[in-house]
Protein backbone atom coordinates (compact mmCIF):
# COMPACT_ATOMS: atom_id res chain seq x y z
CA UNK A 1 0.00 0.00 0.00
CA UNK A 2 0.98 3.58 -0.36
CA UNK A 3 2.38 5.35 2.64
CA UNK A 4 0.66 8.40 4.00
CA UNK A 5 3.14 8.85 6.80
CA UNK A 6 1.66 10.27 9.95
CA UNK A 7 -1.32 11.80 8.19
CA UNK A 8 -3.80 8.98 7.95
CA UNK A 9 -7.02 9.74 6.13
CA UNK A 10 -9.58 10.46 8.82
CA UNK A 11 -13.31 9.93 8.99
CA UNK A 12 -15.32 11.57 11.73
CA UNK A 13 -18.91 10.43 12.32
CA UNK A 14 -21.60 11.01 14.88
CA UNK A 15 -22.51 8.14 17.18
CA UNK A 16 -25.41 6.22 15.69
CA UNK A 17 -24.66 7.23 12.11
CA UNK A 18 -23.42 4.80 9.48
CA UNK A 19 -19.75 4.89 8.48
CA UNK A 20 -18.26 4.08 5.11
CA UNK A 21 -14.52 3.50 4.80
CA UNK A 22 -13.07 3.15 1.33
CA UNK A 23 -9.99 1.43 0.00
CA UNK A 24 -8.38 1.14 -3.41
CA UNK A 25 -6.37 -2.04 -3.80
CA UNK A 26 -3.39 -2.41 -6.03
CA UNK A 27 -3.25 -5.87 -7.56
CA UNK A 28 -5.91 -6.95 -10.04
CA UNK A 29 -4.82 -10.56 -9.40
CA UNK A 30 -5.77 -10.37 -5.72
CA UNK A 31 -8.66 -12.67 -4.92
CA UNK A 32 -9.12 -12.36 -1.18
CA UNK A 33 -9.69 -9.19 0.80
CA UNK A 34 -9.83 -8.52 4.50
CA UNK A 35 -10.72 -5.60 6.75
CA UNK A 36 -8.87 -5.18 10.03
CA UNK A 37 -9.46 -2.86 12.97
CA UNK A 38 -6.49 -1.66 14.97
CA UNK A 39 -6.85 0.13 18.28
CA UNK A 40 -4.02 2.04 19.85
CA UNK A 41 -1.37 -0.25 21.30
CA UNK A 42 -2.96 -3.40 19.91
CA UNK A 43 -2.47 -5.63 16.91
CA UNK A 44 -4.90 -5.66 13.98
CA UNK A 45 -8.14 -7.47 14.64
CA UNK A 46 -10.02 -9.32 11.89
CA UNK A 47 -13.42 -7.80 11.07
CA UNK A 48 -14.67 -9.35 7.86
CA UNK A 49 -13.37 -10.85 4.64
CA UNK A 50 -14.59 -11.36 1.09
CA UNK A 51 -13.45 -13.43 -1.85
CA UNK A 52 -13.30 -12.14 -5.39
CA UNK A 53 -16.25 -14.26 -6.52
CA UNK A 54 -18.52 -12.14 -4.33
CA UNK A 55 -19.62 -8.50 -4.50
CA UNK A 56 -20.98 -8.13 -1.01
CA UNK A 57 -20.74 -9.82 2.33
CA UNK A 58 -22.47 -8.95 5.57
CA UNK A 59 -21.50 -9.50 9.15
CA UNK A 60 -22.76 -8.16 12.41
CA UNK A 61 -23.18 -4.40 11.85
CA UNK A 62 -20.58 -4.52 9.07
CA UNK A 63 -20.84 -4.96 5.33
CA UNK A 64 -18.00 -5.23 2.84
CA UNK A 65 -18.50 -4.30 -0.82
CA UNK A 66 -16.10 -5.28 -3.56
CA UNK A 67 -15.94 -3.65 -6.99
CA UNK A 68 -13.36 -5.53 -9.04
CA UNK A 69 -13.86 -3.34 -12.09
CA UNK A 70 -12.35 -0.32 -10.37
CA UNK A 71 -10.38 -2.26 -7.73
CA UNK A 72 -12.31 -0.72 -4.88
CA UNK A 73 -13.28 -2.09 -1.51
CA UNK A 74 -15.48 -0.49 1.13
CA UNK A 75 -16.43 -1.23 4.70
CA UNK A 76 -19.78 -0.07 5.99
CA UNK A 77 -20.41 0.08 9.73
CA UNK A 78 -24.01 0.48 10.79
CA UNK A 79 -25.00 2.49 13.86
CA UNK A 80 -21.41 3.45 14.64
CA UNK A 81 -20.48 3.32 18.31
CA UNK A 82 -17.66 4.98 20.28
CA UNK A 83 -15.98 1.58 20.54
CA UNK A 84 -15.62 1.57 16.76
CA UNK A 85 -13.06 4.38 16.97
CA UNK A 86 -9.82 2.92 15.60
CA UNK A 87 -7.66 2.70 12.49
CA UNK A 88 -9.13 0.47 9.79
CA UNK A 89 -6.96 -1.32 7.25
CA UNK A 90 -7.96 -3.11 4.12
CA UNK A 91 -5.69 -5.95 3.06
CA UNK A 92 -5.37 -8.08 -0.06
CA UNK A 93 -4.03 -11.52 -0.78
CA UNK A 94 -3.42 -13.31 -4.05
CA UNK A 95 -4.22 -16.93 -4.73
CA UNK A 96 -3.70 -18.24 -1.22
CA UNK A 97 -0.19 -16.87 -1.15
CA UNK A 98 1.63 -16.17 2.06
CA UNK A 99 1.86 -12.43 1.71
CA UNK A 100 -0.98 -10.22 2.83
CA UNK A 101 -0.59 -6.66 1.60
CA UNK A 102 -2.05 -3.97 3.84
CA UNK A 103 -3.29 -0.57 2.76
CA UNK A 104 -2.33 2.64 4.54
CA UNK A 105 -5.34 2.76 6.86
CA UNK A 106 -8.16 5.16 7.73
CA UNK A 107 -8.66 6.59 11.20
CA UNK A 108 -12.29 6.58 12.34
CA UNK A 109 -13.38 9.01 15.05
CA UNK A 110 -16.82 8.55 16.57
CA UNK A 111 -18.28 11.60 18.27
CA UNK A 112 -20.60 10.98 21.16
Amino acid at each position, binding site marked *: *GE*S*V*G*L*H*LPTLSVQEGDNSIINCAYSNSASD*YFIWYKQES*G*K*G*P*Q*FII*DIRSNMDKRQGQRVTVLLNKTVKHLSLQIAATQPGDSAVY*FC*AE*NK*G*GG*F*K*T*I*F*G*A*GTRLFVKA
Partner: protein
Amino acid sequence: GAGVSQSPRYKVAKRGQDVALRCDPISGHVSLFWYQQALGQGPEFLTYFQNEAQLDKSGLPSDRFFAERPEGSVSTLKIQRTQQEDSAVYLCASSFHRLAGVQETQYFGPGTRLLVL
Protein backbone atom coordinates in the same frame (compact mmCIF):
# COMPACT_ATOMS: atom_id res chain seq x y z
CA GLY B 1 -7.64 -19.98 25.02
CA ALA B 2 -4.97 -17.32 25.10
CA GLY B 3 -4.27 -15.26 22.02
CA VAL B 4 -0.94 -14.50 20.39
CA SER B 5 1.50 -13.04 22.88
CA GLN B 6 4.67 -11.08 22.22
CA SER B 7 7.54 -10.01 24.43
CA PRO B 8 8.90 -7.61 25.28
CA ARG B 9 6.10 -5.14 24.62
CA TYR B 10 8.60 -2.29 24.45
CA LYS B 11 12.30 -2.32 23.68
CA VAL B 12 14.74 0.56 23.57
CA ALA B 13 18.05 -0.24 21.95
CA LYS B 14 21.16 1.75 21.24
CA ARG B 15 22.22 1.87 17.61
CA GLY B 16 24.41 -1.14 16.89
CA GLN B 17 22.89 -3.31 19.60
CA ASP B 18 21.35 -6.72 18.81
CA VAL B 19 17.74 -7.38 19.83
CA ALA B 20 15.54 -10.48 20.00
CA LEU B 21 11.76 -10.32 19.86
CA ARG B 22 9.64 -13.26 20.91
CA CYS B 23 6.29 -14.50 19.64
CA ASP B 24 4.10 -17.15 21.26
CA PRO B 25 1.41 -18.12 18.73
CA ILE B 26 -1.96 -19.60 19.57
CA SER B 27 -1.50 -23.21 20.59
CA GLY B 28 -1.89 -25.56 17.63
CA HIS B 29 -1.50 -22.88 14.99
CA VAL B 30 0.70 -24.11 12.18
CA SER B 31 1.31 -20.83 10.36
CA LEU B 32 3.21 -17.90 11.82
CA PHE B 33 3.87 -14.51 10.26
CA TRP B 34 6.03 -11.52 11.18
CA TYR B 35 5.18 -7.98 10.09
CA GLN B 36 6.83 -4.60 10.54
CA GLN B 37 4.60 -1.59 11.12
CA ALA B 38 6.09 1.88 10.86
CA LEU B 39 4.31 4.76 12.57
CA GLY B 40 1.15 5.73 10.70
CA GLN B 41 1.41 2.93 8.16
CA GLY B 42 -0.05 -0.49 7.60
CA PRO B 43 1.83 -3.65 8.56
CA GLU B 44 4.37 -4.91 6.02
CA PHE B 45 5.08 -8.60 5.60
CA LEU B 46 8.50 -9.80 6.73
CA THR B 47 8.47 -13.58 6.83
CA TYR B 48 6.29 -16.71 7.08
CA PHE B 49 6.70 -20.08 8.81
CA GLN B 50 4.74 -23.26 8.39
CA ASN B 51 5.63 -25.28 11.46
CA GLU B 52 9.42 -24.95 11.74
CA ALA B 53 9.96 -24.31 8.04
CA GLN B 54 10.55 -20.73 6.93
CA LEU B 55 8.78 -20.76 3.58
CA ASP B 56 9.09 -17.08 2.70
CA LYS B 57 11.55 -14.52 3.97
CA SER B 58 11.36 -12.15 1.06
CA GLY B 59 10.11 -9.28 3.21
CA LEU B 60 13.09 -9.16 5.54
CA PRO B 61 14.68 -5.76 4.81
CA SER B 62 18.31 -6.79 5.17
CA ASP B 63 20.58 -9.62 6.25
CA ARG B 64 20.60 -8.05 9.72
CA PHE B 65 17.12 -9.51 10.20
CA PHE B 66 16.81 -13.17 11.06
CA ALA B 67 13.80 -15.22 12.20
CA GLU B 68 13.54 -18.74 13.53
CA ARG B 69 10.93 -21.16 14.83
CA PRO B 70 12.98 -24.23 15.72
CA GLU B 71 10.24 -26.37 17.29
CA GLY B 72 7.32 -25.12 15.25
CA SER B 73 5.75 -23.09 18.03
CA VAL B 74 7.55 -20.10 19.58
CA SER B 75 9.31 -17.82 17.11
CA THR B 76 12.08 -15.26 17.57
CA LEU B 77 12.83 -12.33 15.31
CA LYS B 78 16.41 -11.16 15.73
CA ILE B 79 17.80 -7.87 14.51
CA GLN B 80 21.54 -7.47 14.52
CA ARG B 81 23.36 -4.15 14.69
CA THR B 82 20.14 -2.19 14.97
CA GLN B 83 19.77 1.06 13.04
CA GLN B 84 17.42 3.98 13.66
CA GLU B 85 15.35 3.00 10.62
CA ASP B 86 14.54 -0.30 12.37
CA SER B 87 12.36 1.60 14.85
CA ALA B 88 8.83 0.26 14.36
CA VAL B 89 6.23 -2.05 15.85
CA TYR B 90 6.94 -5.69 15.07
CA LEU B 91 3.77 -7.74 14.86
CA CYS B 92 3.41 -11.49 14.97
CA ALA B 93 0.34 -13.32 13.66
CA SER B 94 -0.66 -16.96 13.57
CA SER B 95 -3.29 -19.01 11.78
CA PHE B 96 -4.46 -22.55 12.20
CA HIS B 97 -3.19 -23.90 8.94
CA ARG B 98 -2.17 -22.90 5.47
CA LEU B 99 -3.55 -25.03 2.72
CA ALA B 100 -2.56 -24.25 -0.82
CA GLY B 101 -5.00 -21.76 -2.27
CA VAL B 102 -6.91 -21.34 1.00
CA GLN B 103 -6.70 -18.23 3.09
CA GLU B 104 -7.27 -18.40 6.81
CA THR B 105 -7.81 -15.72 9.40
CA GLN B 106 -4.64 -14.42 10.95
CA TYR B 107 -4.70 -13.58 14.65
CA PHE B 108 -2.31 -10.83 15.63
CA GLY B 109 -0.38 -10.26 18.82
CA PRO B 110 -0.11 -6.80 20.43
CA GLY B 111 3.30 -6.19 18.90
CA THR B 112 6.70 -5.18 20.21
CA ARG B 113 7.46 -1.49 19.89
CA LEU B 114 11.17 -1.09 19.11
CA LEU B 115 12.89 2.26 19.44
CA VAL B 116 16.49 2.51 18.31
CA LEU B 117 18.36 5.55 19.60
